[in-house]
């Protein structure tokens, strides 16, 4: 265990003293503060002289303001944090010939990769917690509402989901740093995967859904069964993207008014009426039930990814160093 801790400590020191950490932290802190202050001021305007709606505090994170919400920003930018922190974890040591020195020390070989992964996860966790606290502080100051217990719990779950999501991308980039010798190749490969999952999967999902269950845009309400099938194919295909998993999970957990992660298709005026009659926020536990499959999937892909990376690293010949 001491080997893991030594590697962990060194890697953590490296992260905190590195320029890249400063840059990403400054970037997300800046964007977070700008979004939160814009949203905070809008909320202040809108709710002046009114009773504040319940769970207004969470709106700081979910409200889109003029551009996008903080949650959307992390959904989009989070993978880059993971990739930037991990893309050269192993192959940098190969290039500088320190890896052969490390493996000839009396530590288990997996201490190296475990220590590095844990240090990355810790860095991400500290970054996210710091940002959420900054935004909360700003929110309390601007909106003048202190978060309730339920809101704090929802934020904690949001943080855990974000940590898993970014760690998944850290795992992907460490995996490529084990597979590829050159740091630029591993960075580009990670970016390619990120672009593929973030943009092409949702694009492909639309194409696939149109192919399997064509729905005519002009002729709305033609065949309800077909529309249902279309939605189903779209949903299943796009859930292959970690980005969709994450944004569905976090938007549901932070917005109690959202009662499902699926798209709602309202067939007629009566249905609309019946929906509008039940506009109460969901209790925390119910929101949690809705997103449980998403969270479990995020945990599974993160562990799967790190597992593959671990297995490859343990089998690599030292001679190739």
């Amino acid at each position: 265990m001491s080997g893991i801790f030594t590697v962990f400590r060194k890697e953590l020191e490296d992260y905190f003293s590195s320029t890249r950490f400063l840059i990403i932290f400054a970037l997300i802190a800046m964007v977070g503060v700008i979004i939160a202050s814009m949203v905070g001021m809008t909320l202040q305007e809108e709710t002046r002289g009114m009773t504040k709606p319940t769970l207004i505090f969470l709106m700081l994170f979910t409200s889109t303001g003029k551009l996008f919400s903080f949650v959307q920003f992390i959904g989009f930018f989070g993978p880059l944090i993971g990739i930037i922190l991990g893309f050269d974890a192993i192959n940098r040591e190969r290039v500088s010939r320190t890896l052969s020195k490390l493996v000839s020390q009396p530590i288990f070989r997996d201490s190296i990769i475990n220590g590095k992964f844990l240090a990355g996860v810790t860095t991400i966790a500290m970054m996210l917690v710091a940002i959420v606290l900054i935004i909360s502080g700003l929110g309390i100051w601007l909106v003048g509402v202190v978060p309730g217990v339920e809101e704090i719990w929802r934020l904690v779950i949001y943080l855990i989901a974000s940590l898993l999501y970014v760690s998944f991308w850290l795992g992907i980039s460490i995996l490529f740093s084990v597979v590829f010798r050159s740091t630029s190749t591993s960075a580009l490969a990670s970016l390619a995967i990120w672009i593929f999952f973030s943009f092409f999967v949702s694009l492909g999902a639309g194409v696939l859904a149109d192919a399997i269950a064509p729905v005519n845009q002009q002729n709305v309400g033609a065949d309800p069964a077909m529309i249902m099938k279309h939605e189903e194919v779209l949903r299943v295909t796009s859930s292959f993207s970690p980005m969709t998993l994450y944004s569905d999970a976090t938007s549901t957990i932070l917005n109690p008014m959202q009662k499902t992660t699926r798209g709602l298709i309202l067939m007629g005026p009566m249905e609309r009426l019946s929906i509008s009659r039940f506009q109460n926020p969901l209790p925390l536990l119910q929101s949690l039930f809705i997103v449980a499959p998403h969270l479990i999937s995020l945990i599974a892909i993160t562990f799967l990814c790190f597992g593959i990376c671990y297995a490859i690293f343990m089998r690599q010949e030292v001679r190739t160093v």
Partner: protein
Amino acid sequence: MEGQLIIEAEELTKVYPSQTAVDRLTLKVQEGEVFGFLGPNGAGKTTTLLMFLGLTEPTSGKVRVCGLDPARDPIQVKRQVGYLPENVGFYDEMDARQNVQYVARLNRIPDEVSSKRIDELLKAVGLHEEAHKKVGAYSKGMRQRLGIAEVLVKEPRLIFLDEPTIGLDPDGTNRMLDLIRSLSQEQKMTIFFSSHLLDQVQRVSDRVGIMIKGKLVATGPIQELAKEKLGVDKERYTLEELYMKYFKEA
């Protein structure tokens, strides 16, 4: 020089898909010896060292280092054995002290113990004045000496040096060889070092082994090998003549 055997290899073989890197190597090294491991580039010297350290598993054959099987007990072996790889690398953004301290921590040496030891070692390898310089600014010779300091911080019984003088200027080479000799004489450390530079091996080794194309073709003190192979008993023989003779036969 009778002592305990510190390395015992028997019929040690390593086969890679493309070639046989080490072919039935049998070798014994006693504690306290300076053993020079000679051979041209690509003869299988590094592969042999990696098998001794448990970093590569042998295809067949047996090996015991410090009485342990490195493939089974790599951690125990690495605790007692230091290894300086060819062209060793460092964390360039850290200074010399921090680099050595990281290795000390990986060896579970508490900081209170290691800090004094690191000072002594850096003095011994002549780097105490540059101890707080970033290693990125070090010359090749300084890096190689820092590598020795890192290897010694765990106080090993046996050290493996892979081409320790490669790329050094004559002055750097002399300092390195003096260091090797003093480690052997003052600290009674066993030193196993590989090289393809004959005159250097000749200057410091008690015994040599000559490896060509994966096979260990000769072992023994240089004088004996010379007598046996060249049939000469002259004072001034060169290892080079001997080496070329073996090389042509192989």
